[in-house]
Structures are given as C-alpha cells and as structure tokens.
C-alpha cells in the first residue's frame, strides 16, 4: 500500500511540473502555431534566478520560496523579449518553418548565453533546499515539497482555465487562437495578446522551476532541454493547443514514469513514455483532448 501511494504521489508531483511547463508550450502553440523550443530554457532562466534570489531573500528574513515571484518576473520578461526581438519579426516575413528554426536557434542562444555568464559558469549549481521535511499520516509519509507541488499546480491550472473562460483578455486569447482575422475585426490587439501569452507561459515555467529544484536541487544550463522534452510530449499527448490536454498529458507522463520506475525499472521509464505517446498518436493523432480540425488556409 505504501509503495503504491508513493508511486502515485511521486507521479502526481512529476506530472504537475510537466503540466505547468506543458501549458506554456500549448498556449503559445494555440495562439501562433509555433512549437516554442526555447520554452524549456525559460525553466533554466527561472532556475538560476531562484539560485541567486532564494539566499538573498532568506538573508532579508523573507521566506525563500517567495523568490519565485522574482523568477516569474524575470522569466516573463525573457519570454516577452524572445517574442518581441526574434519571433515577431521572423513571423512577419517568414513562414512556419522559419519560425520553427528561429525557436530552435533561440533555445541554443539562451543556453549559450547562460554559459557565458561567469556567475553561472559551466558547472551545475546547487540551490538552497526548500520544503525539505515530511508530513506523516499514519504509516504514510509525504514530503512537504510534494504536497505543495501538487496543490499549487492544481490551483494554478484551475485558475488559468478560469482566466481563459471568464476574463476579457483570456477570451481574447481564445479568439486569437481560433481566428486572428476575426479577432482583429472585434478590436483585439493581436500582438498584445500574443506577448501576454508568452509572459504567462514563461511565468508558469518559473513556478515549475521552483517545484523542480525543490525535488532535484541542481541547476544547469541545459536543465530545460530534458524537462522541456517531457513537457512537450505531455502537451502533444494531451492534444497540443488544449489547456486541459496539457494538464492531463503532464499527469499521465508523470504517473507512467513513476510507475515504471517503481514497479519495473527506472531505466525503462523513457521507453514507456514514448511508447505511450506513439500508441496514443496512432489512435488519436490530435492527442487525447485535441480537436482534429484541418489547418485553416
């Protein structure tokens, strides 16, 4: 029983982090049909920001986790700059392929820039450990980090969904993602909506970074690459462009990884992740919650 609960909580915890990151992929894809390869690197930006700001916050007598607000701002600014300086100009003149190449290039640029900064350097950094105690309920114990990760992610996801349904700017996002031309005719400033989407997606990556380093206290310049791939797979599995899809996909990938590691072998975890991805895409090419609508011309 306790092994089973452990497997579920670990899966949910991993899955919540993937889901938070997957939301960023799926929102940007939904709105400009671009797979933002640099999205994973926003986690790295968040990771280093936390590495530097958590100790600073604690020195000031503030709780370490509150540094995440700085990380959110830094990531949002980086996300907006990437859109403003690279993606938007390329999108204006090029096509989907040129945009995709730009995104790949942006990912390498961010990683290399980070390596070039002396304070970051090539070696991994070990951030301050947050939430490193356990809560015991009978024979079952759960780490505070796990609990916080699951609860906070759930709140953020519900909040984000409500945001897209109920707020003016959220509705504008849905319009832009469905039909840019009609959105303009409604008086929606499409470029503004796109840049807000980048800011939100990158901000979520900062939250994911906090959750992640609470579990694996190591920050490297390439940490976004692996995490980014799992999150991207989550987004595709759930149906890229769909917010509930990204959440579901993330949780499934987390559970599968945790289950394989617990009951089979951790070295098999990736095999199962990609196997499930392929099987789902064979049965439902648009992903579990994806809508199979032909691209509009």
């Amino acid at each position, binding site marked *: 029983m306790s092994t089973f609960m452990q497997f579920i909580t670990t899966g949910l915890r991993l899955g919540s982090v993937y889901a938070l990151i997957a939301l960023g992929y799926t929102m940007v894809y939904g709105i400009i049909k671009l797979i933002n390869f640099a999205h994973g690197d926003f986690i790295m930006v968040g990771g280093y920001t936390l590495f530097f700001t958590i100790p600073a916050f604690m020195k000031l007598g503030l709780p370490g986790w509150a540094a995440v607000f700085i990380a959110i701002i830094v990531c949002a600014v980086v996300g907006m700059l990437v859109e403003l300086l690279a993606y938007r100009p390329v999108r204006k003149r090029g096509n989907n392929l040129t945009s995709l190449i730009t995104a790949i290039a942006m990912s390498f640029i961010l990683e290399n820039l980070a390596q070039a900064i002396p304070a970051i350097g090539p070696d991994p950094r070990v951030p301050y450990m947050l939430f490193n105690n356990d809560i015991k309920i009978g024979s079952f114990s759960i780490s505070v980090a796990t609990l916080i990760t699951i609860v906070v992610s759930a709140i953020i996801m519900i909040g984000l969904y409500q945001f897209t349904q109920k707020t003016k700017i959220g*509705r504008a996002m*849905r319009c832009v993602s*469905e039909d840019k*031309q009609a959105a*303009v*005719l*409604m*008086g*929606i400033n*499409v470029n503004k909506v796109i840049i807000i989407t980048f800011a939100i997606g990158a901000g979520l990556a900062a939250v994911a970074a906090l959750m992640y380093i609470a579990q694996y206290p190591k920050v490297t310049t390439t940490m976004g690459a692996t995490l980014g791939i799992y999150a991207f797979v989550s987004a595709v599995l759930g149906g890229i462009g769909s917010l509930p899809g990204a959440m579901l996909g993330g949780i499934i990938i987390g559970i599968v990884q945790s289950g394989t590691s617990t009951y089979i072998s951790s070295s098999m975890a990736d095999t199962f992740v990609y196997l499930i991805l392929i099987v789902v895409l064979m049965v439902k090419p648009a992903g579990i919650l994806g809508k199979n609508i032909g691209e509009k011309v």
Partner: protein
Amino acid sequence: MLNIKDLCVSYGAISALKGISLTVNDGELVTLIGANGAGKTTTLHTISGLLKASSGTIMLDDIDLQKTPAHKIIEYGMAQVPEGRHVFAQMTVLENLYMGAYSISDKKKIEDNIEWVFHHFPRLKERSKQLAGTLSGGEQQMLATGRAIMTNPKIVLMDEPSMGLSPLLVSEIFSIIKELQKSGITILLVEQNAKMALSIADRAYVLENGKISMSGNASELLNDERVKKAYLGA
C-alpha cells in the same frame, strides 16, 4: 461618411485593385457588385486595415484609416461582417456576441445591443448556449451580423452575406440588412448576387478586374442593359 480615392492594392506582383474611388454617404446602403475575383474582398480588407494599400486614401469622416491600426478602427464605428462569416466556432453564440462588444465598456449599451440582436434574430436567442461551429450556414451569417451590431457601428461592411444560402434565407438576411439601414446604420454591401443587392441598395458600384466600371443609382443599374447582360443573367 466613407470616402475612398484612387485606391491601389497588390498581392506581391499581382495588382488586385487598380485605382478605385467610391463614396458612401451617411445613412446610405451602397452595394459593390462584381464577379468572383473582381477585388471585392480585397477592397473591404483594405478598408478595415487587414491589408495595406500601395497608394490612395481611405477616409472615415475625418479619420485617415490607413494611419489607424486595424484593431482600433472598430472604435471609430466601423464593423465588418467578413466573407465566410468567421464566427468563433469553439465559442457559444452568446460568447461570440460578447466578443463583438470587446471594445465597449458601457454595460447597459452591451445589454441593449444583445436585446436588439435577439429581437431581430430570435433563432440566435434559442441557440445562445450552443457552440457557433454547430450552427447552420444561415445561422452563422446571422451570428456574424449580430456580432458586428454588437460593436455599436455607424457603418457596417458586409462581404457576400448571401453566399451559400438558400433563396429563403437570402431574403431573410437581406430584409435584416434593410432594417439595419432603417435603424440609422450606414451600409456597404459587397455581393455577387447582383439582383438582390441592387433591389435593396440606394446606389451601386460595379467592380471589374480591380476597376470600377459603372456606378449610379441602384434602380437605374438594375435596368441597365450591360448590367443585365453581365450580372443578372438576362
């Protein structure tokens, strides 16, 4: 109200509009008729800022529309019902209507407009919770029209509202257009269905290969031999 002078628009090397001029006065219902590919949609897209002109001027009263970002134009009272309707398929009928009111902050005005739309399109009221993508073509046309009304326009540009609709629905839509005019809204109606358009319009322009070939009172054009031959199948 709307004044277009020597407008030229091209898609890369293809020139779609070769210097057209037209005027729509306050309260008028003016139609722009022409065959497929004549440049009607290009004209409307350029007016509403979705396309950039290579030369010419577009004035809405004393506002230079070419210097106005496309999403701002709506604030000056110009709405468009685009060709192919372009309703937000994943949103409900009601959500679509509220999107039309995106740039209006007066809540009372929004509710009044909703009431107006539901009064004139009772079918939209019945289906207000339904996703727009599940509506029939005629209902989508009503929704696209209602959504434009929600922007509180003084002038509406309509691009082939009759496209793909049964004759019965076409007359229903056209009687609504006439009613819009009666309620004080100026209308520029783009149509391939010349007969219907000319029968409700005050004045008309004929567009051929990116140029205005004829213009005048709608009733006169309806009886013009050249128009009859080319557009009315007589």
